[in-house]
Protein backbone atom coordinates (compact mmCIF):
# COMPACT_ATOMS: atom_id res chain seq x y z
CA UNK A 1 0.00 0.00 0.00
CA UNK A 2 2.79 2.31 1.03
CA UNK A 3 4.72 1.43 -2.15
CA UNK A 4 1.61 2.10 -4.22
CA UNK A 5 1.16 5.55 -2.68
CA UNK A 6 4.82 6.30 -3.28
CA UNK A 7 4.50 5.25 -6.92
CA UNK A 8 1.39 7.39 -7.34
CA UNK A 9 3.16 10.34 -5.73
CA UNK A 10 6.15 9.91 -8.01
CA UNK A 11 3.87 9.72 -11.06
CA UNK A 12 2.15 12.94 -9.96
CA UNK A 13 5.53 14.68 -9.63
CA UNK A 14 6.60 13.45 -13.05
CA UNK A 15 3.30 14.60 -14.56
CA UNK A 16 3.72 18.02 -12.96
CA UNK A 17 7.27 18.26 -14.30
CA UNK A 18 6.02 17.23 -17.73
CA UNK A 19 3.34 19.88 -17.52
CA UNK A 20 5.96 22.52 -16.72
CA UNK A 21 8.06 21.44 -19.67
CA UNK A 22 5.05 21.77 -21.93
CA UNK A 23 4.48 25.25 -20.56
CA UNK A 24 8.09 26.04 -21.34
CA UNK A 25 7.78 24.93 -24.93
CA UNK A 26 4.51 26.87 -25.25
CA UNK A 27 6.32 29.96 -24.06
CA UNK A 28 9.01 29.38 -26.64
CA UNK A 29 6.57 29.24 -29.55
CA UNK A 30 4.37 32.11 -28.37
CA UNK A 31 7.09 34.28 -26.96
CA UNK A 32 6.44 37.37 -29.06
CA UNK A 33 4.04 40.14 -28.26
CA UNK A 34 0.85 40.20 -30.42
CA UNK A 35 2.04 43.44 -32.05
CA UNK A 36 5.37 41.87 -33.03
CA UNK A 37 3.59 38.83 -34.48
CA UNK A 38 1.25 41.08 -36.47
CA UNK A 39 4.17 43.13 -37.83
CA UNK A 40 5.98 39.95 -38.88
CA UNK A 41 3.00 38.71 -40.93
CA UNK A 42 1.78 35.18 -41.47
CA UNK A 43 4.46 33.44 -43.54
CA UNK A 44 7.70 34.40 -41.84
CA UNK A 45 11.22 33.27 -42.68
CA UNK A 46 11.25 31.09 -39.54
CA UNK A 47 8.01 29.42 -40.61
CA UNK A 48 9.10 28.99 -44.22
CA UNK A 49 12.50 27.38 -43.67
CA UNK A 50 12.58 23.65 -43.00
CA UNK A 51 12.18 23.26 -39.25
CA UNK A 52 14.36 20.14 -39.31
CA UNK A 53 17.00 21.75 -41.52
CA UNK A 54 20.48 22.47 -40.19
CA UNK A 55 20.15 26.24 -40.57
CA UNK A 56 17.07 26.48 -38.34
CA UNK A 57 18.65 24.10 -35.82
CA UNK A 58 21.67 26.39 -35.61
CA UNK A 59 19.42 29.48 -35.47
CA UNK A 60 17.50 28.01 -32.55
CA UNK A 61 20.70 27.25 -30.67
CA UNK A 62 21.75 30.90 -31.06
CA UNK A 63 18.31 32.24 -30.07
CA UNK A 64 17.71 33.52 -33.61
CA UNK A 65 14.59 31.49 -34.40
CA UNK A 66 12.45 34.16 -32.71
CA UNK A 67 14.34 36.85 -34.62
CA UNK A 68 13.46 35.27 -37.95
CA UNK A 69 9.84 35.04 -36.80
CA UNK A 70 9.94 38.76 -35.92
CA UNK A 71 9.18 41.97 -37.75
CA UNK A 72 12.42 42.28 -39.70
CA UNK A 73 12.72 42.68 -42.60
CA UNK A 74 15.87 40.62 -43.09
CA UNK A 75 17.73 39.15 -46.02
CA UNK A 76 18.97 35.72 -44.97
CA UNK A 77 21.62 33.65 -46.74
CA UNK A 78 20.79 30.03 -46.00
CA UNK A 79 23.48 27.43 -46.74
CA UNK A 80 22.00 24.08 -47.76
CA UNK A 81 22.48 21.13 -45.42
CA UNK A 82 25.34 19.76 -47.56
CA UNK A 83 27.24 23.03 -47.02
CA UNK A 84 26.84 22.62 -43.25
CA UNK A 85 28.31 19.13 -43.55
CA UNK A 86 31.37 20.53 -45.34
CA UNK A 87 32.17 22.95 -42.50
CA UNK A 88 34.91 21.88 -40.04
CA UNK A 89 33.68 19.44 -37.40
CA UNK A 90 32.13 21.15 -34.41
CA UNK A 91 31.53 24.49 -36.16
CA UNK A 92 27.77 24.27 -35.65
CA UNK A 93 27.78 22.32 -32.43
CA UNK A 94 24.82 23.48 -30.32
CA UNK A 95 26.73 23.09 -27.05
CA UNK A 96 26.49 26.16 -24.79
CA UNK A 97 30.25 26.70 -24.92
CA UNK A 98 30.08 26.92 -28.73
CA UNK A 99 27.23 29.42 -28.77
CA UNK A 100 29.38 32.52 -29.21
CA UNK A 101 31.01 31.10 -32.35
CA UNK A 102 27.65 29.94 -33.70
CA UNK A 103 26.18 33.39 -33.12
CA UNK A 104 29.06 35.07 -34.98
CA UNK A 105 28.67 32.77 -37.99
CA UNK A 106 24.90 33.12 -38.28
CA UNK A 107 24.82 36.88 -37.87
CA UNK A 108 27.33 37.10 -40.72
CA UNK A 109 24.66 35.58 -42.98
CA UNK A 110 21.79 37.90 -41.99
CA UNK A 111 21.43 41.35 -43.54
CA UNK A 112 19.17 44.27 -42.71
CA UNK A 113 16.32 44.98 -45.16
CA UNK A 114 15.08 43.21 -48.26
CA UNK A 115 17.71 42.62 -50.97
CA UNK A 116 16.55 40.74 -54.03
CA UNK A 117 19.13 39.07 -56.28
CA UNK A 118 18.37 41.70 -58.93
CA UNK A 119 19.22 44.46 -56.40
CA UNK A 120 22.56 42.81 -55.66
CA UNK A 121 23.30 42.37 -59.38
CA UNK A 122 22.49 46.03 -60.12
CA UNK A 123 24.81 47.13 -57.30
CA UNK A 124 27.57 44.90 -58.74
CA UNK A 125 27.11 46.58 -62.14
CA UNK A 126 27.18 50.06 -60.56
CA UNK A 127 30.27 49.11 -58.58
CA UNK A 128 32.10 47.97 -61.73
CA UNK A 129 32.09 44.31 -60.83
CA UNK A 130 31.62 44.25 -57.08
CA UNK A 131 29.37 45.43 -54.26
CA UNK A 132 29.85 45.48 -50.49
CA UNK A 133 27.12 44.14 -48.23
CA UNK A 134 27.07 44.91 -44.50
CA UNK A 135 25.78 41.92 -42.57
CA UNK A 136 24.77 41.89 -38.92
CA UNK A 137 28.24 40.66 -38.03
CA UNK A 138 30.65 41.74 -40.78
CA UNK A 139 30.91 42.53 -44.47
CA UNK A 140 30.53 40.42 -47.62
CA UNK A 141 31.61 41.16 -51.19
CA UNK A 142 29.22 40.34 -54.04
CA UNK A 143 30.47 39.58 -57.56
CA UNK A 144 29.18 37.82 -60.68
CA UNK A 145 30.66 34.58 -61.96
CA UNK A 146 29.27 32.86 -65.04
CA UNK A 147 25.95 34.66 -64.69
CA UNK A 148 25.56 33.65 -61.06
CA UNK A 149 25.80 35.91 -58.02
CA UNK A 150 28.69 34.98 -55.74
CA UNK A 151 29.26 36.21 -52.19
CA UNK A 152 32.72 36.20 -50.62
CA UNK A 153 33.50 36.57 -46.92
CA UNK A 154 36.54 38.32 -45.45
CA UNK A 155 38.43 35.02 -45.33
CA UNK A 156 37.91 34.42 -49.07
CA UNK A 157 35.24 31.69 -48.72
CA UNK A 158 32.84 31.90 -51.65
CA UNK A 159 29.14 31.01 -51.73
CA UNK A 160 27.02 31.02 -54.88
CA UNK A 161 23.33 31.87 -54.72
CA UNK A 162 21.73 28.67 -55.99
CA UNK A 163 18.12 29.64 -55.42
CA UNK A 164 17.30 33.26 -54.71
CA UNK A 165 14.34 35.51 -53.95
CA UNK A 166 12.32 33.17 -51.71
CA UNK A 167 9.96 35.85 -50.43
CA UNK A 168 8.42 35.94 -46.95
CA UNK A 169 6.35 38.44 -45.01
CA UNK A 170 9.40 39.57 -43.05
CA UNK A 171 12.10 39.46 -45.72
CA UNK A 172 13.74 37.29 -48.33
CA UNK A 173 15.89 34.14 -48.32
CA UNK A 174 18.66 33.28 -50.76
CA UNK A 175 19.88 29.70 -50.65
CA UNK A 176 23.66 29.40 -51.02
CA UNK A 177 26.01 26.46 -51.52
CA UNK A 178 28.58 27.27 -48.81
CA UNK A 179 28.89 28.68 -45.31
CA UNK A 180 30.29 32.23 -45.04
CA UNK A 181 32.41 32.92 -41.97
CA UNK A 182 32.86 36.13 -39.96
CA UNK A 183 36.15 38.06 -39.99
CA UNK A 184 37.39 36.26 -36.91
CA UNK A 185 35.81 33.76 -34.61
CA UNK A 186 33.84 35.38 -31.83
CA UNK A 187 36.02 35.45 -28.77
CA UNK A 188 35.25 33.01 -26.01
CA UNK A 189 34.73 34.33 -22.51
CA UNK A 190 38.06 34.54 -20.69
CA UNK A 191 38.89 31.64 -18.47
CA UNK A 192 40.28 33.95 -15.83
CA UNK A 193 40.24 37.63 -15.10
CA UNK A 194 43.43 39.48 -15.59
Amino acid at each position, binding site marked *: MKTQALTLGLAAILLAAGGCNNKASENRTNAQTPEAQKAAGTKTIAAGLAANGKFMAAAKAA*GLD*QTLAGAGPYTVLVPDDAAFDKAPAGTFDAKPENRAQLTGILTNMIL*SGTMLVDD*IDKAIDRGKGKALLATM*GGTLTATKDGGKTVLTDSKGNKATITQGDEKYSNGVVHHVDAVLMPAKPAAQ*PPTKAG
Partner: protein
Amino acid sequence: MKLQRIEQRQVRNVEHNQMRGNQLARDRGQAMRAEMKANRLERVSTREALRDELRTNRIERLDNGMFVRNANLGTRVVRAEDFSNRARGYGVGGCPPGLMDKGCMPPGQAAKLLGTRFSDAERIVTLGSVPYSVRYLYPDTNDFYYRYGDGYMYRVDRGTSLIDALLPLAFGGYMPGSYFPSSYMNSYVPDYYGLNSFYPASYDYGFGSSYGYGNTCNRYANGVIYQVDCMTGFVENVIPMYAGGYGVGQMLPTGYGYYNVPDQYRSLYYDTSDYGYWYAPGAIYQYDPSSSMITSVAALLSPGFNIGQPLPMGYDVYNVPYDYRATYYDTPSAMYRYNNGNIYQIDPATMLVTAIVASILT
Protein backbone atom coordinates in the same frame (compact mmCIF):
# COMPACT_ATOMS: atom_id res chain seq x y z
CA MET B 1 47.75 102.99 -86.44
CA LYS B 2 44.04 102.40 -85.90
CA LEU B 3 44.69 98.68 -86.23
CA GLN B 4 47.37 98.88 -83.52
CA ARG B 5 44.98 100.68 -81.18
CA ILE B 6 42.34 98.03 -81.75
CA GLU B 7 44.89 95.30 -81.03
CA GLN B 8 46.03 97.08 -77.86
CA ARG B 9 42.40 97.43 -76.74
CA GLN B 10 41.80 93.72 -77.40
CA VAL B 11 44.87 92.79 -75.35
CA ARG B 12 43.65 95.06 -72.53
CA ASN B 13 40.19 93.45 -72.71
CA VAL B 14 41.69 89.96 -72.51
CA GLU B 15 43.84 91.00 -69.53
CA HIS B 16 40.85 92.67 -67.90
CA ASN B 17 38.71 89.57 -68.40
CA GLN B 18 41.50 87.42 -67.01
CA MET B 19 41.80 89.64 -63.95
CA ARG B 20 38.04 89.58 -63.53
CA GLY B 21 38.11 85.77 -63.80
CA ASN B 22 40.88 85.58 -61.22
CA GLN B 23 38.91 87.88 -58.96
CA LEU B 24 35.81 85.66 -59.34
CA ALA B 25 37.93 82.57 -58.62
CA ARG B 26 39.35 84.33 -55.56
CA ASP B 27 35.81 85.23 -54.44
CA ARG B 28 34.70 81.66 -55.01
CA GLY B 29 37.72 80.44 -53.07
CA GLN B 30 36.90 82.80 -50.21
CA ALA B 31 33.26 81.67 -50.21
CA MET B 32 34.36 78.05 -50.26
CA ARG B 33 36.82 78.68 -47.45
CA ALA B 34 34.09 80.40 -45.44
CA GLU B 35 31.75 77.51 -46.12
CA MET B 36 34.40 74.97 -45.15
CA LYS B 37 35.10 76.97 -42.01
CA ALA B 38 31.37 77.02 -41.21
CA ASN B 39 31.18 73.29 -41.85
CA ARG B 40 34.22 72.74 -39.69
CA LEU B 41 32.68 74.78 -36.89
CA GLU B 42 29.42 72.91 -37.33
CA ARG B 43 31.25 69.59 -37.21
CA VAL B 44 33.10 70.65 -34.09
CA SER B 45 29.89 71.81 -32.40
CA THR B 46 28.09 68.64 -33.53
CA ARG B 47 30.92 66.55 -32.17
CA GLU B 48 30.86 68.50 -28.93
CA ALA B 49 27.10 68.08 -28.72
CA LEU B 50 27.47 64.37 -29.45
CA ARG B 51 30.15 64.09 -26.83
CA ASP B 52 28.00 65.94 -24.30
CA GLU B 53 25.06 63.70 -25.18
CA LEU B 54 27.17 60.57 -24.83
CA ARG B 55 28.46 61.83 -21.54
CA THR B 56 24.98 62.69 -20.29
CA ASN B 57 23.71 59.31 -21.41
CA ARG B 58 26.56 57.60 -19.66
CA ILE B 59 26.00 59.53 -16.48
CA GLU B 60 22.28 58.83 -16.78
CA ARG B 61 22.94 55.14 -17.34
CA LEU B 62 25.26 55.03 -14.37
CA ASP B 63 22.72 56.96 -12.30
CA ASN B 64 20.00 54.57 -13.43
CA GLY B 65 22.20 51.65 -12.51
CA MET B 66 22.82 53.11 -9.08
CA PHE B 67 19.16 53.96 -8.76
CA VAL B 68 18.12 50.44 -9.69
CA ARG B 69 20.64 48.96 -7.35
CA ASN B 70 19.61 51.20 -4.50
CA ALA B 71 15.98 52.18 -4.84
CA ASN B 72 14.20 48.85 -4.47
CA LEU B 73 11.49 49.72 -7.02
CA GLY B 74 9.81 47.41 -9.51
CA THR B 75 10.09 43.69 -10.09
CA ARG B 76 13.56 43.78 -11.58
CA VAL B 77 14.86 45.66 -8.58
CA VAL B 78 13.24 43.17 -6.25
CA ARG B 79 15.04 40.51 -8.23
CA ALA B 80 18.31 42.36 -7.88
CA GLU B 81 17.73 42.67 -4.16
CA ASP B 82 17.08 38.92 -3.98
CA PHE B 83 20.43 38.31 -5.53
CA SER B 84 22.13 40.75 -3.20
CA ASN B 85 21.60 38.47 -0.23
CA ARG B 86 23.56 35.68 -1.85
CA ALA B 87 27.11 35.19 -2.97
CA ARG B 88 27.40 36.57 -6.46
CA GLY B 89 29.66 36.19 -9.46
CA TYR B 90 32.20 38.90 -10.02
CA GLY B 91 30.55 39.76 -13.29
CA VAL B 92 26.96 39.89 -12.16
CA GLY B 93 26.48 42.14 -9.23
CA GLY B 94 29.02 44.82 -10.04
CA CYS B 95 31.14 43.73 -7.12
CA PRO B 96 34.55 45.40 -7.11
CA PRO B 97 37.61 43.52 -5.85
CA GLY B 98 37.58 45.29 -2.48
CA LEU B 99 34.16 43.89 -1.66
CA MET B 100 34.97 40.23 -2.12
CA ASP B 101 34.53 39.65 1.60
CA LYS B 102 30.93 40.89 1.31
CA GLY B 103 29.74 38.00 -0.79
CA CYS B 104 31.22 38.35 -4.27
CA MET B 105 32.84 35.44 -6.00
CA PRO B 106 35.74 36.24 -8.34
CA PRO B 107 36.23 33.96 -11.36
CA GLY B 108 39.37 32.42 -9.84
CA GLN B 109 37.43 31.26 -6.83
CA ALA B 110 34.56 30.01 -8.99
CA ALA B 111 37.07 28.05 -11.07
CA LYS B 112 38.16 26.24 -7.92
CA LEU B 113 34.73 24.63 -7.82
CA LEU B 114 35.60 22.75 -10.99
CA GLY B 115 36.10 19.13 -10.11
CA THR B 116 34.47 19.42 -6.70
CA ARG B 117 31.41 17.43 -5.70
CA PHE B 118 28.13 19.19 -6.43
CA SER B 119 26.98 18.75 -2.84
CA ASP B 120 30.19 20.39 -1.56
CA ALA B 121 29.80 23.30 -3.99
CA GLU B 122 26.25 23.87 -2.77
CA ARG B 123 27.63 24.66 0.67
CA ILE B 124 29.66 27.52 -0.84
CA VAL B 125 27.25 28.94 -3.41
CA THR B 126 23.49 28.93 -3.85
CA LEU B 127 22.63 26.89 -6.92
CA GLY B 128 19.23 26.61 -8.60
CA SER B 129 17.60 24.73 -11.46
CA VAL B 130 17.82 26.27 -14.90
CA PRO B 131 14.66 28.36 -15.56
CA TYR B 132 12.22 26.71 -17.99
CA SER B 133 12.47 29.49 -20.53
CA VAL B 134 16.17 28.82 -21.15
CA ARG B 135 16.23 25.10 -20.38
CA TYR B 136 16.35 24.35 -24.10
CA LEU B 137 19.73 26.06 -24.15
CA TYR B 138 21.11 23.97 -21.30
CA PRO B 139 19.41 20.63 -21.86
CA ASP B 140 19.87 17.84 -19.33
CA THR B 141 21.26 14.66 -20.87
CA ASN B 142 21.92 11.15 -19.61
CA ASP B 143 25.50 12.21 -18.89
CA PHE B 144 25.12 15.57 -17.16
CA TYR B 145 22.77 18.31 -15.97
CA TYR B 146 23.07 22.04 -15.31
CA ARG B 147 22.57 24.24 -12.26
CA TYR B 148 23.11 27.98 -12.06
CA GLY B 149 24.03 30.57 -9.48
CA ASP B 150 26.56 33.28 -8.66
CA GLY B 151 26.81 34.34 -12.29
CA TYR B 152 27.86 30.93 -13.55
CA MET B 153 26.23 27.88 -15.11
CA TYR B 154 27.61 24.71 -13.55
CA ARG B 155 27.57 21.43 -15.48
CA VAL B 156 27.39 18.41 -13.24
CA ASP B 157 28.50 14.94 -14.34
CA ARG B 158 25.74 12.48 -13.43
CA GLY B 159 28.16 9.58 -13.08
CA THR B 160 30.56 11.21 -10.62
CA SER B 161 28.39 14.10 -9.29
CA LEU B 162 31.39 16.35 -9.89
CA ILE B 163 31.17 19.81 -11.45
CA ASP B 164 32.90 19.28 -14.78
CA ALA B 165 32.31 22.63 -16.53
CA LEU B 166 31.75 26.24 -15.58
CA LEU B 167 30.17 28.73 -18.00
CA PRO B 168 30.15 32.44 -17.14
CA LEU B 169 26.63 33.85 -17.54
CA ALA B 170 27.75 37.44 -17.64
CA PHE B 171 29.99 38.79 -20.30
CA GLY B 172 33.62 38.49 -19.43
CA GLY B 173 33.30 39.69 -15.90
CA TYR B 174 34.36 43.36 -15.84
CA MET B 175 31.57 45.52 -14.51
CA PRO B 176 31.26 49.21 -13.67
CA GLY B 177 33.28 49.75 -10.56
CA SER B 178 35.88 47.10 -11.35
CA TYR B 179 39.21 47.50 -13.15
CA PHE B 180 39.88 46.44 -16.71
CA PRO B 181 43.07 44.33 -16.96
CA SER B 182 45.97 46.34 -18.40
CA SER B 183 46.63 43.52 -20.87
CA TYR B 184 43.31 44.40 -22.56
CA MET B 185 43.99 48.16 -22.73
CA ASN B 186 45.33 47.81 -26.28
CA SER B 187 42.28 45.90 -27.41
CA TYR B 188 40.17 48.29 -29.48
CA VAL B 189 36.57 48.01 -30.65
CA PRO B 190 36.42 45.89 -33.84
CA ASP B 191 35.47 47.44 -37.18
CA TYR B 192 32.37 45.25 -37.74
CA TYR B 193 30.04 47.47 -39.76
CA GLY B 194 31.68 50.59 -38.40
CA LEU B 195 31.35 49.86 -34.69
CA ASN B 196 34.78 51.35 -34.08
CA SER B 197 33.56 54.70 -35.38
CA PHE B 198 30.55 54.55 -33.03
CA TYR B 199 32.81 53.54 -30.16
CA PRO B 200 36.13 55.23 -30.95
CA ALA B 201 39.34 54.54 -29.05
CA SER B 202 38.82 57.88 -27.30
CA TYR B 203 36.66 60.99 -27.57
CA ASP B 204 39.39 63.58 -27.97
CA TYR B 205 39.75 65.93 -30.94
CA GLY B 206 39.82 63.78 -34.04
CA PHE B 207 38.66 60.69 -32.16
CA GLY B 208 42.03 59.10 -32.52
CA SER B 209 44.63 59.23 -29.84
CA SER B 210 44.71 57.88 -26.37
CA TYR B 211 43.06 60.30 -23.97
CA GLY B 212 39.70 61.91 -24.43
CA TYR B 213 37.21 64.08 -22.62
CA GLY B 214 36.66 62.98 -19.08
CA ASN B 215 39.55 60.62 -19.76
CA THR B 216 37.17 58.01 -21.23
CA CYS B 217 38.34 55.36 -23.70
CA ASN B 218 36.48 52.54 -25.43
CA ARG B 219 38.05 49.11 -25.26
CA TYR B 220 36.86 45.66 -26.28
CA ALA B 221 37.10 42.16 -24.86
CA ASN B 222 35.16 38.98 -25.56
CA GLY B 223 32.18 40.46 -27.36
CA VAL B 224 31.81 43.41 -25.00
CA ILE B 225 32.71 47.09 -25.32
CA TYR B 226 34.02 48.62 -22.12
CA GLN B 227 34.11 52.38 -21.51
CA VAL B 228 37.05 52.77 -19.19
CA ASP B 229 39.18 55.47 -17.64
CA CYS B 230 42.10 55.77 -20.08
CA MET B 231 44.67 55.99 -17.32
CA THR B 232 43.48 53.59 -14.66
CA GLY B 233 41.27 51.16 -16.58
CA PHE B 234 38.41 51.81 -14.14
CA VAL B 235 35.28 50.46 -15.90
CA GLU B 236 32.64 53.19 -16.27
CA ASN B 237 30.21 51.43 -18.57
CA VAL B 238 29.71 48.03 -20.19
CA ILE B 239 28.16 47.64 -23.66
CA PRO B 240 27.69 44.01 -24.72
CA MET B 241 27.18 43.15 -28.41
CA TYR B 242 25.26 40.27 -29.92
CA ALA B 243 27.56 39.66 -32.89
CA GLY B 244 30.42 39.47 -30.41
CA GLY B 245 28.88 36.45 -28.78
CA TYR B 246 26.86 37.96 -25.94
CA GLY B 247 23.49 36.33 -26.26
CA VAL B 248 20.93 33.76 -25.26
CA GLY B 249 21.41 31.79 -22.08
CA GLN B 250 23.49 34.57 -20.52
CA MET B 251 22.33 37.04 -17.89
CA LEU B 252 21.63 40.73 -18.02
CA PRO B 253 23.84 42.66 -15.65
CA THR B 254 21.84 44.10 -12.74
CA GLY B 255 23.12 47.56 -13.65
CA TYR B 256 20.93 47.37 -16.77
CA GLY B 257 17.65 47.00 -14.95
CA TYR B 258 15.84 49.59 -17.06
CA TYR B 259 13.89 49.53 -20.31
CA ASN B 260 16.01 50.94 -23.13
CA VAL B 261 14.49 49.64 -26.39
CA PRO B 262 14.85 52.20 -29.26
CA ASP B 263 11.71 54.27 -29.92
CA GLN B 264 10.74 52.74 -33.25
CA TYR B 265 10.63 49.25 -31.66
CA ARG B 266 8.78 50.11 -28.45
CA SER B 267 5.33 49.35 -29.82
CA LEU B 268 6.55 45.83 -30.69
CA TYR B 269 8.77 44.99 -27.74
CA TYR B 270 7.45 46.09 -24.36
CA ASP B 271 7.85 44.44 -20.96
CA THR B 272 5.18 41.92 -19.95
CA SER B 273 4.84 39.70 -16.89
CA ASP B 274 6.47 36.82 -18.83
CA TYR B 275 9.20 38.63 -20.70
CA GLY B 276 11.26 41.78 -20.62
CA TYR B 277 13.11 43.42 -23.48
CA TRP B 278 16.49 45.09 -23.41
CA TYR B 279 18.64 46.69 -26.09
CA ALA B 280 22.40 46.48 -26.58
CA PRO B 281 24.36 47.20 -29.79
CA GLY B 282 23.38 44.60 -32.36
CA ALA B 283 20.17 43.30 -30.85
CA ILE B 284 17.00 43.67 -28.81
CA TYR B 285 17.08 40.85 -26.30
CA GLN B 286 14.11 39.12 -24.75
CA TYR B 287 14.78 37.97 -21.18
CA ASP B 288 13.08 36.08 -18.42
CA PRO B 289 12.30 38.57 -15.61
CA SER B 290 12.56 35.97 -12.86
CA SER B 291 16.12 34.90 -13.65
CA SER B 292 17.43 37.81 -15.82
CA MET B 293 18.49 35.22 -18.39
CA ILE B 294 18.27 36.08 -22.07
CA THR B 295 15.73 33.74 -23.67
CA SER B 296 15.94 34.86 -27.30
CA VAL B 297 16.88 37.65 -29.68
CA ALA B 298 13.75 39.64 -30.57
CA ALA B 299 15.41 41.67 -33.33
CA LEU B 300 18.83 42.12 -34.86
CA LEU B 301 19.86 45.74 -35.33
CA SER B 302 22.71 47.40 -37.17
CA PRO B 303 24.44 50.49 -35.76
CA GLY B 304 22.01 52.85 -37.57
CA PHE B 305 22.50 56.05 -39.55
CA ASN B 306 22.60 59.65 -38.41
CA ILE B 307 21.34 62.42 -40.64
CA GLY B 308 24.30 64.19 -42.24
CA GLN B 309 26.75 61.31 -41.92
CA PRO B 310 28.28 59.63 -44.98
CA LEU B 311 26.53 56.37 -45.93
CA PRO B 312 28.59 53.68 -44.16
CA MET B 313 30.47 51.06 -46.14
CA GLY B 314 28.40 48.00 -47.06
CA TYR B 315 25.17 49.65 -48.15
CA ASP B 316 25.78 49.42 -51.90
CA VAL B 317 22.67 47.31 -52.43
CA TYR B 318 19.10 48.69 -52.48
CA ASN B 319 17.27 47.03 -49.55
CA VAL B 320 13.93 48.79 -49.11
CA PRO B 321 11.09 46.44 -47.97
CA TYR B 322 8.59 45.33 -50.67
CA ASP B 323 5.69 47.50 -49.58
CA TYR B 324 7.74 50.69 -49.89
CA ARG B 325 9.52 50.01 -53.19
CA ALA B 326 6.90 51.72 -55.36
CA THR B 327 7.41 54.97 -53.42
CA TYR B 328 11.11 54.88 -52.57
CA TYR B 329 13.25 53.73 -55.49
CA ASP B 330 16.72 54.89 -56.48
CA THR B 331 16.91 57.75 -58.97
CA PRO B 332 19.87 59.88 -60.15
CA SER B 333 18.85 62.52 -57.58
CA ALA B 334 18.05 60.33 -54.56
CA MET B 335 18.88 56.88 -53.18
CA TYR B 336 17.00 55.04 -50.45
CA ARG B 337 18.26 52.51 -47.92
CA TYR B 338 16.49 50.67 -45.08
CA ASN B 339 18.05 50.45 -41.63
CA ASN B 340 16.61 49.60 -38.19
CA GLY B 341 12.95 50.31 -38.92
CA ASN B 342 13.54 53.47 -40.98
CA ILE B 343 13.98 54.26 -44.67
CA TYR B 344 16.71 56.84 -45.23
CA GLN B 345 17.30 59.13 -48.21
CA ILE B 346 20.84 59.47 -49.49
CA ASP B 347 22.23 62.12 -51.83
CA PRO B 348 24.00 60.17 -54.64
CA ALA B 349 26.37 63.11 -55.32
CA THR B 350 27.76 63.43 -51.80
CA MET B 351 26.69 60.00 -50.46
CA LEU B 352 25.49 61.74 -47.30
CA VAL B 353 22.40 60.52 -45.44
CA THR B 354 20.01 63.43 -45.90
CA ALA B 355 16.71 62.41 -44.26
CA ILE B 356 14.50 59.73 -42.73
CA VAL B 357 11.62 59.49 -45.20
CA ALA B 358 9.60 56.71 -43.59
CA SER B 359 9.45 54.74 -40.38
CA ILE B 360 7.96 51.36 -41.17
CA LEU B 361 7.29 50.17 -37.62
CA THR B 362 5.28 53.09 -36.26
